[in-house]
């Protein structure tokens, strides 16, 4: 009897592991949301190809696009990819390395993140997985906004370039995490009383003071990004915190539950788009 239960549990674990082969009712609900989300932008910017949304504001703002294309000709993050690879391959004090913690030795796995971890009952992002790997091997965790974590993330993203997200919503708990991120995205926050959606849906493409907010479709695909304003690479959660602060809302900690669930929601809205990290931004 016990053996049968074990086998059943194993089978269950496998079947939820591959969402595309085994679509759940939750995947269907999310796909419905995703199609409304995409339609919103495709109607708003009728001349923009859906594949171009991975380029953020440059997909819709011809004026800044030209300058950005010049930057991407000699990408400022190129060295960072090499540095990230070096870090990635450098053995820990115990002789093991990052590769030992990831499927396929960590190559071309960016597309599998963020996913809902059924054992830990939380959204697992790439950056969180990197730090869990370090801790499991007796190393100190890295800070989550910039520096080595962004370099490692950049290298790992680079090995998944041109792939599409391979993520899903295996069960109710995962769907709850998705809904939590969705709620975050549409909730007004801060003294300026603005939701992410107020800028990145409603006002996408409009000039707000000096800036034009990008369409939310495509957010996350190009991270980490090299921002000239930062003078270096930064992670997605660093950007989230910046956008919260800009509306005078108290930001949350990078890799805390709020931002991980938000990343889960945003990534699920981007299914079908290719990953193109790292990238350059103003």
């Amino acid at each position, binding site marked *: 009897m016990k053996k049968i239960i074990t086998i059943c549990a194993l089978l269950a674990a496998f079947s939820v592991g591959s969402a595309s082969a085994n679509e759940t009712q939750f995947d269907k609900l999310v796909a419905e949301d995703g199609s409304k989300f995409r339609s919103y932008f495709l109607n708003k910017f009728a001349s923009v190809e859906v594949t171009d949304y991975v380029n953020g504001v440059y997909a819709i703002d011809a004026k800044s696009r030209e300058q950005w294309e010049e930057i991407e000709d000699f990408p400022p993050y190129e060295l960072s990819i090499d540095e990230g690879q070096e870090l990635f391959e450098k053995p820990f004090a115990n002789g093991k390395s990052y590769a030992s913690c990831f499927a396929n030795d960590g190559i071309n796995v960016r597309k599998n993140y963020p996913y809902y971890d059924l054992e830990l009952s939380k959204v697992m992002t790439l950056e969180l997985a990197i730090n869990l790997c370090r801790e499991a091997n007796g190393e100190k965790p890295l800070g989550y906004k910039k520096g080595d974590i962004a370099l490692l993330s950049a290298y790992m993203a680079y090995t998944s370039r041109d792939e599409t997200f391979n993520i899903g919503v295996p069960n109710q708990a995962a769907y709850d995490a998705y809904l939590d991120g969705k*709620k975050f995205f549409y*909730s007004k*926050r801060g003294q300026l009383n603005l939701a992410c959606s107020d800028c990145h849906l409603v006002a996408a493409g409009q000039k707000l003071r000096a800036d034009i907010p990008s369409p939310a479709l495509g957010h996350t695909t190009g991270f980490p990004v090299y921002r000239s304003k930062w003078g270096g690479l930064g992670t997605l959660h660093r950007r989230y915190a910046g956008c919260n*602060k800009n509306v*005078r809302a108290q930001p949350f900690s990078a890799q805390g539950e709020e931002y991980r669930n938000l990343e889960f929601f945003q990534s699920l809205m981007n299914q079908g788009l290719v990953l193109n990290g790292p990238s350059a931004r103003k």
Partner: protein
Amino acid sequence: MKKLLVVAMAALLSAPVVASTEVVALIDKAQSTRLQAAAAGFEWTKTAGLIKSAQKALKDGDAALAQKLASKALKQAENSLLQAQYSDQHWQDHAPQ
């Protein structure tokens, strides 16, 4: 003499007389409301600083300034809490239908 007294009283009344115990209570209320908003995930960035400045003004003996800052902080905290409630009820209205 009587007239003088009336004038003096009027002057006294028009000047803001702020009891520091009242200000302490106001600061406490701002603080607890701010913490409620924070627990809901809707704290604003300036509120804690206003409360700190109010506390400092009170310590420096400027109860009137402390009251002004604490009132501002309380208003912010109350609004952020209202925002949390609004968002709870209305966030779905903002998603593409």
